[in-house]
């Protein structure tokens, strides 16, 4: 059964980093509207919150997708956990629903494309959305710190996870909390 041609929701995905956040706005799994990295060095949470507020006002997303930092195995610091919580409060005040996905969930979704590591996921995204190809960071060596542009790919990965799971739910309405392997079967 094919999913009905329902217009896709406009999604704002935000991925906080140590110096700011990466974001992506999509209107479907293949329609990337805007993307980028915002950086700040002082009063990080307050400034990040203000910048996300501006993005919400400009793009009026239907849903905001964030990382589930409360999930098992999450290694986010307290500041980032608080920031993500603030994003959720901001969204709730504006009556915008939020969805949170753990890194494990994202990896499960991308495992369909045989992408498990961050770099493999970023490469898979660059293949799907060629406009992101110039932003693809080089393969990270053990002595290198993470490229700031990786936050864009992490944000896009969250948004694509949302679309993938939303489409599955459209096909199999009863498939709410089932693991992905069962959906695909």
């Amino acid at each position, binding site marked *: 059964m094919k999913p009905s041609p329902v217009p896709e929701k406009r999604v704002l995905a935000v991925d906080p980093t140590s110096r700011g956040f990466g974001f992506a706005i999509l209107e479907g799994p293949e329609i990337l*509207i805007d993307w980028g990295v915002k950086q700040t060095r002082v009063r990080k949470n307050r400034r990040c919150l203000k910048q996300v507020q501006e993005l919400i006002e*400009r793009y009026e997303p239907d849903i905001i997708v964030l990382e589930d930092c409360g999930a098992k195995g999450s290694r986010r610091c307290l500041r980032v956990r608080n920031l993500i919580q603030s994003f959720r409060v901001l969204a709730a005040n504006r009556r915008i629903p939020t969805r949170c996905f753990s890194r494990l969930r994202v990896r499960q979704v991308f495992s369909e494309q045989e992408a498990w590591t961050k770099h493999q996921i970023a490469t898979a995204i660059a293949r799907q959305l060629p406009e992101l190809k110039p932003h693809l960071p080089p393969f990270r060596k053990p002595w290198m710190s993470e490229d700031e542009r990786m936050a864009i790919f992490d944000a896009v990965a969250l948004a694509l996870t949302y679309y993938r799971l939303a489409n599955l739910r459209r096909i199999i309405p009863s498939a709410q909390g089932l693991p992905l392997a069962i959906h695909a079967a």
Partner: protein
Amino acid sequence: MVHPKLPNYLRRYRKRARLSQEELAFLLGGGSGAKVSRYERFKRIPGLETGLACEVVFGVPVRELFAGIFQKVERNTGRRARLLARRLGARQAEPLMAEKLSRLRRFLPS
């Protein structure tokens, strides 16, 4: 329900073309990057000439570049067409009126 589009998608296409705001402003004929920034932040609506220049630069029809504005114009025009059709409907017996009405109904929203 029609999904509301953004007023314009200039930022998307500019970034895809890997152009800076300054470069796009130059291609659009004068002005600074600040003007392009205002278009992209939906603070200002470009004129017809600029809109057509955008179509030339990106190779995308104006109605797609300015999808939200197009949606709004289409809706408003449809509403006015319905109103006009109702007004003309009273004078259906007059010659040429039937043709005019059928022309109007062609772009009436369903």
